[in-house]
C-alpha cells in the first residue's frame, strides 16, 4: 500500500507522543493522553513545553526506574479511558498489585514522585494488606528488613509508658477525683454545673503540671504538616464484623418472641445495618394507658420497621464521604440501591 493510504487507514499515526527520560538515561515515547494522566508529567508538558521531541524529553525523577515506569504507564493507559465501569477499574486494580513486594515498593515510590495519587493509594493499600496480621518476623522476611534492634530496644516503648510520670500522676489525680465525686453523690444530688466546675479545675491542674501556661486543651502551637486529607473510609470501622455478629444474635431474640400472633408480620431483618446499637434504654414508661404486653409488641414492631427501613440506608449514612468510599464500593450506584429492597445476606 502507498504511504497516503496507510496514513488514512491508521489513525494511530495522528497521535502525538511524549518523550520521557529515566534517570538512567533510557528514553521512551508514550502516547500523549496516557502521559497526561500523571500530574507531574502533565505539568511539565504544559508549563515547560518539554517532551515533544527526543532531544527535549521530560526528565523523570530519580525514583522512577524503567520497570516501574512501564507499570505506571500500563496503569495510566487503562484508567485514562473514560468509558470503563467502576467494577472493571476495581478488578484491574486488584490484579495490578499482584506483583512481588520489591516491585510494589518501587512502584509506590515512583508513583509518589510522579504525584499519581490514585496509584499511591492503591499501592499503599496493597502494602498495608501485606503487613496486616503478620508477626514482625514475617514482615521482616517479606520485605527483607534488617533485624537490627536489640531485645531491649524492642521492649522500650512499652516500658516507657508505664513509667511515664505524667501518666502516673494523671492516674492518681483521676482516681482521687472520682472518689470525691462518688462520695459527694452519696451525700446529695449532684448538679450538672458542679460536675462541670470540677472538671475545669482538673483541666487546669493538669495544664499546670504539664507546664502549659494556658487553660484548657485546645490548639497546641505546633508546626502542623499540611498533610493531604485522607480519602479513606475510616468511618466504616473495621471493628464492625464483631459487632455485626452481636447484633444478629440480639436481633433474633425479639423477633422470635414477637412472632406469636398474626400481629407481627415483620420478618427478622437481616443485619445490613452498620451501626452496632444495642438499645440500652430501659422500658420505663409502661403506664401510658396501653397494656404493657401490647406496648412491648408495639415497641418491637416499630423497631423492626425502623431497622428494616434503616438497613437500606447504610451507604447513605456517609453521604458526605461518598467520594471517599466510591473506590471501595463494588460497582453499583449507591443512590439507586437505596430503596430497591434489602440486600439479604
Amino acid at each position, binding site marked *: 500500500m502507498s504511504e497516503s493510504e496507510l496514513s488514512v487507514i491508521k489513525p494511530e499515526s495522528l497521535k502525538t507522543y511524549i518523550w520521557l527520560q529515566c534517570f538512567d538515561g533510557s528514553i521512551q515515547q508514550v502516547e500523549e493522553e496516557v502521559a497526561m494522566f500523571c500530574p507531574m508529567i502533565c505539568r511539565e508538558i504544559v508549563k515547560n513545553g518539554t517532551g515533544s521531541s527526543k532531544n527535549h524529553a521530560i526528565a523523570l525523577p530519580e525514583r522512577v526506574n524503567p520497570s516501574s515506569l512501564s507499570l505506571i504507564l500500563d496503569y495510566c493507559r487503562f484508567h485514562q479511558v473514560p468509558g470503563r465501569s467502576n467494577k472493571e477499574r476495581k478488578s484491574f486494580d486488584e490484579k495490578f498489585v499482584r506483583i512481588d*513486594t520489591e516491585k510494589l515498593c518501587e512502584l509506590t515510590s515512583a508513583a509518589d514522585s510522579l504525584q499519581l495519587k490514585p496509584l499511591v493509594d492503591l499501592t499503599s493499600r496493597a502494602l498495608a494488606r501485606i503487613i496486616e496480621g503478620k508477626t514482625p518476623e514475617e514482615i521482616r522476611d517479606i520485605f527483607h528488613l534488617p533485624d537490627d534492634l536489640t531485645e531491649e530496644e524492642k521492649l522500650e516503648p512499652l516500658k516507657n509508658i508505664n513509667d511515664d510520670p505524667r501518666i502516673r500522676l494523671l492516674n492518681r489525680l483521676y482516681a482521687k477525683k472520682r472518689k470525691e465525686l462518688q462520695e459527694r453523690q452519696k451525700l446529695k444530688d449532684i448538679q450538672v454545673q458542679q460536675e462541670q466546675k470540677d472538671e475545669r479545675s482538673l483541666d487546669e491542674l493538669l495544664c499546670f503540671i504539664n507546664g502549659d501556661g494556658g487553660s484548657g486543651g485546645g490548639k497546641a502551637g505546633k508546626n502542623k504538616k499540611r498533610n493531604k486529607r485522607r480519602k479513606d473510609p475510616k468511618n466504616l470501622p473495621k471493628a464492625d464484623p464483631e459487632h455485626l455478629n452481636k447484633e444478629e444474635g440480639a436481633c433474633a431474640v425479639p423477633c422470635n418472641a414477637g412472632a406469636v400472633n398474626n400481629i407481627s408480620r415483620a420478618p427478622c431483618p437481616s443485619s445490613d445495618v452498620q451501626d452496632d446499637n444495642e438499645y440500652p434504654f430501659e422500658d420505663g414508661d409502661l403506664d401510658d394507658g396501653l397494656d404493657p404486653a401490647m406496648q412491648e409488641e408495639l415497641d418491637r414492631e416499630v423497631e423492626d420497621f425502623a431497622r428494616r427501613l434503616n438497613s437500606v440506608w447504610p451507604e447513605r449514612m456517609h453521604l458526605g464521604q461518598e467520594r471517599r468510599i466510591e473506590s471501595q464500593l463494588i460497582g453499583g450506584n449507591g443512590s439507586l440501591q437505596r430503596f430497591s429492597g434489602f440486600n439479604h445476606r
Partner: protein
Amino acid sequence: MSTCKKARAEATSVVSTDRLSSLPPEIKGDILSRLNAEEAVRTSTLSSTWRDAWTDMPVISLCDGNLTRTKFVTLVDMVLLLHKGTIEEFDISGSKNYHDEFGRWMIMLSRKSPKSVIIKLNSGPRYKIPSCLFSIGDLEYLHLENCIISLPRAFQGFKSLTDLTLKIFSSTDKDIQNLILFCPALTDLILDSFEGINRLNIKAPKLDYLYVEGDFEDIKLDAPNLEVAFLSLDNKGKAYQSVPIAHDKESYVKQSLGSLSVIETLTISGFFLKYLSKGCIHTKLPAVFTHLKSVCLMICLWDQRQVLTACSLFQNAPNLKKLDIWSFPWSILGQDEDQVGIQGLNLQLKMDHLVMASVNHFGGLDYEVDFVAKLLSWAPGLEELKIDWKGEKDCSMSLAKLLALPRASTRAKVIVTF
C-alpha cells in the same frame, strides 16, 4: 507462609534490598494508617528505620477487639503520648468499660487537634464528653456514640465541622440546638437514639443530609439546602399518643418540612407521620417541593388524618417520581380511630410524574386496597407498582380486588411479591 519461604529463597540467591524502608515518611505513615493502631505500633520493633515511623501516621485507628482491657488501655496511652505528628483522624472503638481512662484520653487527644474524631465506646454507662473536646477548633468530622453531650459555657463552635453524627446519647434541647447552630459549615447531620431532648430545633443553613431518629415531642427544622432527609419518631415519645387538639393552629408539617425548598429525597418513618398529622393540615404548603423526587412513608392507612397529610405532601410535590409506602399493620391502635382510611375523602390528586410506587407490608385489608386504588387512578405515568404481601396466607380475595382496580396509566404493571 509460602511467601515467607519464597522471600527467604530470594534472599539467599539475590542481593535483596530493603525497599520498604526507603519509602518517604509520608508514604510510610499512609501505609501504617491503614493498619490497626496495635499493628502499626508493633512495627516499631521491625528495624531501626521503623522505630518512629508510626509516630507520624496521620490516622490512628484503635479497636479493642481481642485485647484485654489493660492491654488496650496501655496501647491507647502509648499512642496518645508518643505520637508526634498531626492526627488527621482518630478513631477509637471498644466494648469494655473505659470510664476511668476516658477523661485523660480526651485531654491528650484534644491537645493534638485532630480533624476527625470517632468515639464508639459502646459498653457501660454513657461517657460524658469533657469540655476539652469542644475546644478542638479545626474539627471537621465528629462521630460520637454512647455519650452525654453537655456544652461548656464558653463553647465557640466548630467552625469547620461538616459532619456530625451522634448516636445513643443524652443531652438537652438547648445544648443540641446550640451545638448545631454554632457549626455554620455543617452539611451532614445524624441524630440517632437520644434521651433528654424534647424539642429538636435544627437550624443549619448549609445542611445537605439529615437523619433523625429518636424520641422527641416536637421538631423545628430550618435547613433551606437540605437534599436528603430521614425523619423517624420512636413510639416512646408522647407525640404518637396525643389526640389531635381541636383547632390546633400549629402546622407541624410547616414547622418541620416548610423550609425544605430543595429537598430531593424524603423518608418519614416510625410515628413521624402521625406527629405531622396533628394540628393543621394545609392543602397548600408554603414551599412547593419542586425537586422532591423520591418519598418513602411509613403510614397508618386507616387513619384519615395521616392519609390527608400524606396527600397534601403529594400535592406539593409535583415532580414526584418514586413513592414507597410502608403500611402500619396493626389494628390495635385503631380501636378508637377511624378505620375508614381514604374512603370517604374526596381527593383528586395529579401525580403526573410518578413512575415507580411500592406498597410494603401490604395486608390486603380494605383500606389498603382503597389506597392502592386511588394511587392507580392518580398516576397516569405509572410504570410499576410493587406490592409486597405480608398478610394472611390466603390472598386470593385481595388479589382479585387488586386486579379489578382501574388504572390511569396504560403501562402500569402491578407486581405482587411474597
